[in-house]
């Protein structure tokens, strides 16, 4: 290394000396070579000499001027004023100048189309240059400058390059097709035959770019691929990594459109979910062409490129049979180690797997354990996955983990963790006891967020198990828990959590028969909570005020004759009457009227004059206030449950963006495999460096494929027409699309049909997405739908609304919706 460097610098100095001797004007410049000059270009904003330099005879000056221009572009300055001078240099013999000119040209050509035309001749000449680099570059710039007028010239250029001897130039030709097409879609008919030519390309270097072009030009014309499908599968392993991604995408769509869905037959009718594994599946019937795709793509699981790995995973997950899925998961897990960004993205994809088939992740649970220095988004995604993996066997391990995570330094993570504990309690009855203990410990925490979340989760748990009070033995301790909660009211600051405690106190205040208490019928700890709440009433938030009113009414209903309670109630209702929040005023008035029949003397009806109407008896009031709770179980699943297929952006951000990565639905019946048979269905000569493709071929060819001695298929299905028309039956049979029996059809009817079928496919995709949606909702433990029983009164309805933890429900709309629902239900 050192010797090489010294010899290099020696060479350089020697050359420098020679130059110094011969070209006197260069000596000054050599002096500045030592210090880096790039930054000086970057920092100066001097445009004075650029024009002169561009017109200069010396390459050095031109180069300097171009560098300065590029630096200006980089800084965001508009330097299009030099366009004319720059274009003149497009034919420069110096490659570096030329490249900088190209960079400039690509940026400003669409603003100066007329001047840009000056350069076209040079590019056309370059297309015939002896150097493949020049040819490819010329085509890339030509197709990239975005001038409408030269569209047909570009098409000609692409056509010329598509037949080039250098695969690099053919790659450039394929890359130019999308650019040309997006500029002017009328060139479609000219570009399609070029694409079909390129599809036959044998070089693995260019095939990836051809897939890009195919996806851009005619993504729905998958019928053009019949003849190439098997070869594309085999060449997959030799293509460059970016090409592999595009190819995998294309082949997966082909398989989902043209091949039959793998049929899985189970031996056992009832399969135990915990032991559900591939060994239980007795037989899988997989299309041999699909097997070919899976076999040729599985080596790519070992790619160094994470995107390739995920693309293969998509194939195995969405196209392959279930038995392949478990083999695919470890490769995705490997990516978690790559970088924080990749970990974040991969986790979201694994979360999809976790939701749909948690058994695949079960054995690698500890790889999702949170680390203190994970990104926040990563931690939350890991929690979402861990929650899906909870089973009676591992719940204790996970619970221990969760209790550790509660001490995390990020509030969002803490909140998610506490919800996860709640989820365990809800879904694994065995763990309910320990979950409650854990949550009660959290109530003692010094952190506001921890305490309030724990309270909210506890409340949701109580609500979702209405029978707990009396029947389930695990909840025998529940009044004790509430009394402990009640005692901690002063320490609970979060308004929602306070409101929750007040509600629970009210709800569970009635004592069971035979229990002794100071006020008959009311648990001993309840009245003191009311006293505290009433004392701080004026300074509470609306949610707490509403609950204070509820609590007052409930206690008063239990003990209507108790004078202290009466006094407290009268005080609270008076405060509520003059509250700033109309919800509080309304609630106060409503409850006040409701309690009129108790004869407690706290009502102010006399003052307002007789309103008439029905007065409820005490038992009825009791029913209204206490019964019918807990009917709406509150979901404890947290965080964005992002929808979207594996390997998409909307899966990560949770927000839609243009485009769709979902694969089409399987056809009712796959296309005839003979469509895919070609003359060269024998192992090709091993690739330039990879021997892998031949191995796959042997394994495959031995079973289903005609061997090389087999006579070539009699039906020649290679499209011969200039527009690449496809034979009938090459599209999959869809229920709604009758198969045309005529072997060839005229172009017009063909196009009409292909439009039709493409529309159908779009519809199919939409349907697919809807189905995914529905599936997601099933996975969630609780829908948001509120089931209202007919006996419920309106007040209940409002109560329920209030406790929906996600909503403050202060706005009018919610109430409206609720009553609408109620009205509909009643009618």
């Amino acid at each position, binding site marked *: 290394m050192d010797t090489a460097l010294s010899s290099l610098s020696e060479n350089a100095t020697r050359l420098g000396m020679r130059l110094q001797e011969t070209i006197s004007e260069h000596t000054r410049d050599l002096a500045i070579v030592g210090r880096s000059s790039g930054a000086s270009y970057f920092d100066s904003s001097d445009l004075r000499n650029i024009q002169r330099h561009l017109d200069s005879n010396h390459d050095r000056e031109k180069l300097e001027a171009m560098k300065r221009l590029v630096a200006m572009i980089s800084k965001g300055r508009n330097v299009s004023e030099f366009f004319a001078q720059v274009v003149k240099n497009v034919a420069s013999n110096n490659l570096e100048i030329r490249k900088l000119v190209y960079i400039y040209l690509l940026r400003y050509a669409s603003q100066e189309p007329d001047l840009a035309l000056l350069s076209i001749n040079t590019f056309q000449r370059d297309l015939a240059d002896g150097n493949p680099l020049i040819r490819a570059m010329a085509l890339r710039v030509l197709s990239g400058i975005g001038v409408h007028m030269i569209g047909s010239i570009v098409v000609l250029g692409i056509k010329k390059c598509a037949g080039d001897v250098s695969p690099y130039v053919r790659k450039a030709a394929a890359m130019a097709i999308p650019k040309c097409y997006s500029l002017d879609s009328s060139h479609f008919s000219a570009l399609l035959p070029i694409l079909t030519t390129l599809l036959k390309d044998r070089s693995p270097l260019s095939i990836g770019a051809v897939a890009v072009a195919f996806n851009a030009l005619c993504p729905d014309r998958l019928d053009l691929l019949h003849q190439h499908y098997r070869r594309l599968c085999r060449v997959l392993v030799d293509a460059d990594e970016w090409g592999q991604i595009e190819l995998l995408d294309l082949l997966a769509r082909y398989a989902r459109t043209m091949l039959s869905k793998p049929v899985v037959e189970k031996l056992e009718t009832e399969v135990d979910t915990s032991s559900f594994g591939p060994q239980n599946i007795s037989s899988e019937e997989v299309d041999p062409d699909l097997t070919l795709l899976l076999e040729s793509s599985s080596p790519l699981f070992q790619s160094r490129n994470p995107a390739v790995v995920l693309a293969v995973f998509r194939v195995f997950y969405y196209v392959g049979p279930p038995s392949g899925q478990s083999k695919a998961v470890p490769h995705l897990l490997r990516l978690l180690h790559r970088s924080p960004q990749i970990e974040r993205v991969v986790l979201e994809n694994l979360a999809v797997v976790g939701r749909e088939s948690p058994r695949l992740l079960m054995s690698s649970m500890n790889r999702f354990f949170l680390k203190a220095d994970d990104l926040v988004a990563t931690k939350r995604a890991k929690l979402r996955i861990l929650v899906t993996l909870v089973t009676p066997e591992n719940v204790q391990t996970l619970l221990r983990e969760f209790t550790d995570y509660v001490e995390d330094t990020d509030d969002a993570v803490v909140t998610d963790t506490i919800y996860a504990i709640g989820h365990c309690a809800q879904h694994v009855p065995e763990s309910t006891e320990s979950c409650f203990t854990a949550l009660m410990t959290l109530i003692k925490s010094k952190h506001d967020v921890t305490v309030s979340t724990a309270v909210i989760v506890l409340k949701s748990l109580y609500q979702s198990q209405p029978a707990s009070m009396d029947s389930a033995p695990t909840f025998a301790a529940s009044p004790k828990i509430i009394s402990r909660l009640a005692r901690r009211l002063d320490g609970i600051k979060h308004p929602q959590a306070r409101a929750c405690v007040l509600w629970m106190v009210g709800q569970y205040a009635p004592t069971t028969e035979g229990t002794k208490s100071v006020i008959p019928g009311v648990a001993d700890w309840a009245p003191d909570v009311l006293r505290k709440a009433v004392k701080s009433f004026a300074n509470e938030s609306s949610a707490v005020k509403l609950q204070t009113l509820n609590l007052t009414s409930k206690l008063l209903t239990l003990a209507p004759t108790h004078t202290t309670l009466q006094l407290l109630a009268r005080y609270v209702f008076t405060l509520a009457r003059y509250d700033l929040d109309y919800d509080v005023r309304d609630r106060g008035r409503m409850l006040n009227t409701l309690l009129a029949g108790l004869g407690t003397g706290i009502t102010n009806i006399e003052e307002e004059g007789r309103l008439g109407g029905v007065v409820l008896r005490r038992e009825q009031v009791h029913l209204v206030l206490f019964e019918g709770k807990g009917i709406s179980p509150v979901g404890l699943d947290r965080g964005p449950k992002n929808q979207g297929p594996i390997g*998409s952006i909307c899966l990560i*951000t949770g927000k839609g963006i243009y485009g769709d990565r979902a694969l089409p639905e399987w056809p009712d019946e796959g296309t005839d495999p003979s469509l895919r048979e070609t003359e060269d269905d024998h192992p090709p000569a091993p690739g330039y460096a990879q021997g892998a493709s031949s191995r796959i071929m042997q394994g495959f060819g031995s079973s289903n494929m005609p061997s090389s001695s087999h006579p070539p298929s009699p039906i020649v299905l290679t499209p011969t027409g200039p527009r690449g028309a496809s034979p009938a039956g090459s599209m999959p049979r869809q229920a709604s699309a009758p198969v045309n029996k005529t072997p060839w059809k005229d172009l017009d009817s063909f196009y009409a049909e292909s439009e039709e079928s493409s529309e159908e496919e779009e519809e199919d995709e939409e349907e697919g997405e809807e189905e995914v949606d529905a599936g997601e909702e099933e996975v969630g433990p609780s829908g948001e739908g509120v089931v209202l029983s007919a006996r419920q009164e309106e007040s209940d309805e409002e109560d329920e609304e209030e406790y929906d933890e996600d909503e403050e429900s202060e706005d009018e709309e919610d109430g409206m919706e609720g009553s609408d629902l109620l009205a509909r239900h009643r009618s």
Partner: protein
Amino acid sequence: MVGSTIDGVIIIDSSGRPIIQSNFRTTFPSYPLVHIDAFNDALAKCSFHSDLDPVLHVSAAASDERHTSACCHLEHGGLRFLCPVSEEADPLFVFSFLETFIRTLQEYLGDVSASSLKDNFDVVYQLLEEMLDNGHPLTTESNALRDIVLPPSFFNKILNVAGVSGLSAATPTPFSSPIPWRKSGLRYNANEIYFDINEEVDTIVSKTGGVLSSSIWGIIKCNSRLSGTPDLHLTFTNPKLLLDPSFHPCIRLSKFASNKSLSFVPPDGNFTLMEYRVDTAPISQTATGAPQIQQLPISLKASIQLTDFGGNFEFVLSTRPSVKVLESVVFTFFLGHTSTSANCSCLVGGGPIGMNDGKKEGSWNYDPRSQVLAWDIAQLTTNPIILRGSFTSTEPHARPARSVKIAFQMPRHSLSGLKVDQLKLTGEMYKPYKGVRINSSGKVEWRMQTRHVSES
């Protein structure tokens, strides 16, 4: 359009200003700016960098779906690399490209920083132009790239001054090599190839000292300086260890599948040959607790007491008897968002007080910006050393991290016991000089029990 496309690449400096912007051809003019603003806004909202999601949702003024996009970003060398994407694509595709791009920049510029980018912005633009064509990665193999974009060097600068293009002179036939990752016609006087095997153990230890999860990750880096087209065959004595491997494209996958050996024509220069994972004892067997702890080379006794507005701590660190020495041990402890200062002393335990020569027990440092307490120990032995101290916080209830992190180096040691058996060269006549070096390192996350002690 179905395939994945990247709209462009923006590199912004630490102050949020763009340095490099690739050409955004198909989008509206303010598109890059919208993303830079969206990124800077999101960054400003986060109190900590780790709060920032690597994929941001960006919506321009219009709520139309066509005008929403995503911005994938990552940080490298104090710079932020942004990749706006306006059509549905795989974010991994974007990050893979960004990683490849940064790797290429490193090869070209050495260190990637704001100043090195500004010095060589013309090279960066040329690279971008070659690597990203209309949203699709084009040429990303560094061996091929070096043929078409000349790396900045003293020699090339002189050629430039002389007005001679280095390109035409140096590379008469780009893309003439039939192997995409290898140049043709390479000649070296001394043919050498070096393998660097680096293994890292990544462990989480529970509060009670049990190992919760542990994996060993290995990476084999290679520096090849061989003439012609050598065909190499590398075998290991215990290849069964290698799990979930990933390879450089040069590896013949079929050979590995059949006999677990690596057969390849190497690229020229530095490259990553393969990565792998080694399984530690299956975790399911350790449900009972202790035995697995032997794998851990380090031992920690921690006690943390949180008081009002701060806390006290004491950490006792040593290696396990089975391991003699650990080098460059870095112990870090995040003291929480509200922490303001720390004061500690490092001691050598066990020995007499006079033994403290200021080296063995290491040195500590509290960084008020990252709020991390770091304790650097050049060499850790079985002799325990102690870090004792206290910290202060602006809040009455401090909230330090629930775990400490310990990183260490084990030079010339293999965690997995992987051994190279032999390297055979065919296709060329010379005998290369071969070298293999194994280094190990570790990252341990040790969870701790904190106790609250209220003074009042």
